[in-house]
């Protein structure tokens, strides 16, 4: 009983703080309303006994929102991020898309024949989830992650305006490098 109430209360917090993201007029409040929403979802996941997944959700999402606070000042010109501003744009389209999506998903939930449980959950549900998600595709997953990292690094390298010739001079012999922002290890 108490557990049910706690679970649904967390769900309510998640939905309401998710809605608050669009209602508040400050970037900081929107960012951390979203963080609160994710923390509530992470706690709900603990109720499904997926402890690892729940705690990692909290960890990643709070960190992500903190990093977002860095980017919002770095990349938003004139720093509107520091002033009160509306969190919505394209209202009419957004409302239509949101309501349609909600109706389709709700209809799906109500109309699908949900299967009855066969057997009982295993002792370690996190491991069972991992195996059913990744089990036969582990090789693909293991290959995809270095490819993704390589893509990110290559993307940053291609996007960067400065090359090694800007840093080290035309014959790559200038030491230390000429950087607008010097690093901490004196390369």
């Amino acid at each position, binding site marked *: 009983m108490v557990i049910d109430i706690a679970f649904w209360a967390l769900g309510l917090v998640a939905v309401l703080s998710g809605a608050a993201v669009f209602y508040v007029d400050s970037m900081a409040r929107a960012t951390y309303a979203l963080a609160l929403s994710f923390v509530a979802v992470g706690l709900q996941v603990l*109720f499904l006994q997926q*402890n690892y997944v729940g705690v990692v959700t909290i*960890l990643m999402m709070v960190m992500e929102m903190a*990093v977002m606070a860095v980017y919002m000042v770095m990349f938003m010109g004139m720093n509107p991020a520091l002033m009160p501003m509306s969190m919505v744009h394209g209202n009419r389209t957004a409302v239509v898309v949101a309501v349609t999506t909600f109706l389709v998903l709700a209809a799906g939930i109500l109309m699908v024949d949900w299967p009855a449980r066969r057997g009982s959950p295993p002792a370690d549900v996190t491991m069972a989830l991992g195996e059913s998600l990744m089990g036969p595709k582990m090789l693909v997953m293991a290959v995809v992650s270095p490819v993704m990292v390589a893509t990110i690094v290559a993307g940053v390298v291609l996007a960067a305006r400065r090359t090694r010739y800007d840093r080290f001079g035309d014959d790559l012999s200038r030491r230390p490098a000429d950087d607008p922002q010097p690093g901490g290890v004196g390369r």
Partner: protein
Amino acid sequence: MADPMAMPGPGSPTMEVAPAWAVAAVALLGALVVVAALLDGILASRASGGPGRTMSGLARPFGEAARLMRQRRRTTVQADTVLWRIGGAGLLVTAALMVTVVPLGDWTVFDLDVGVMWFNAMDVMVWALVWLAGWGANSAHALVGGYRFLAHGLGYELPLMFALVAPAIAAESLNVGRVAAAQEGLWFVVWMPVAFLVYLLGVAAFSVWGPFAPALGSDVAGGVRAELSGVDRLLFETGRYALLAAGAAFAVPMFLGGGAGPLLPGWAWVLVKTLAVLTVLVWLRRRLPAFRPDTFMEVGWMVLLPAVLVQDLLVAVIAVWRS
């Protein structure tokens, strides 16, 4: 609905106590905060020189607390009060949540099977809280302080995470009690010293302590706490000491063998070791130069991260070879 949070199951080396004992855990954390503040007061007095300074150093934290409790609260124009208060008071709450997974000898308040991750998630909360404390006042200096902390965070967090990975690999568990129990005979600090040092650096960092204090630097008028006054400031400072104490307490089951030791019972050894680590951390405050926020990230990613990754690799190879 199933019971939330399946516990580590049979054979867990620690025993979960009744939830009401959480009050005792918080009281113990409070006692550690007082000890750390006293120690810092004495060190501060000695640094300022002159005879008979130890006594005034002992009185310093209590005097400061009394002064702050009577101080009138400063207000700023268009402050984001909700986020400001959350940021200022949250550090203490986070520290209390950290110590719930630390076993005191055989007892633990919250015997979570992924306790190491729990600690990690809580130390990431500090990112949000310190920045919010800097943001809320609507003051340029405080916001600069908040961003200084995040700049440090980008440098210290990943090395800290990978430092926590090493004991977990060796113990083959994320349960803090099991990590402590896996050190029978040989403490992890002996064969993973790099991870231990990086962990201590991480503790100083998420407590905004010593070399990581530029976020509170006097060159930006006190940084994050520039506009914090009265009880708010007291809570923020207490929170920093509490994070330092919680980090010291967590080092004991992770690296220092938990409650292992001769003569004394397990809980006493945990406290002794916690106090020892805490003393070192407080002492280091005046011994290390500040890490500049703008250059520390390269130190973190070019020096600390590779060092701790090599440490993890060695630990993993040894763990595979042993099994």
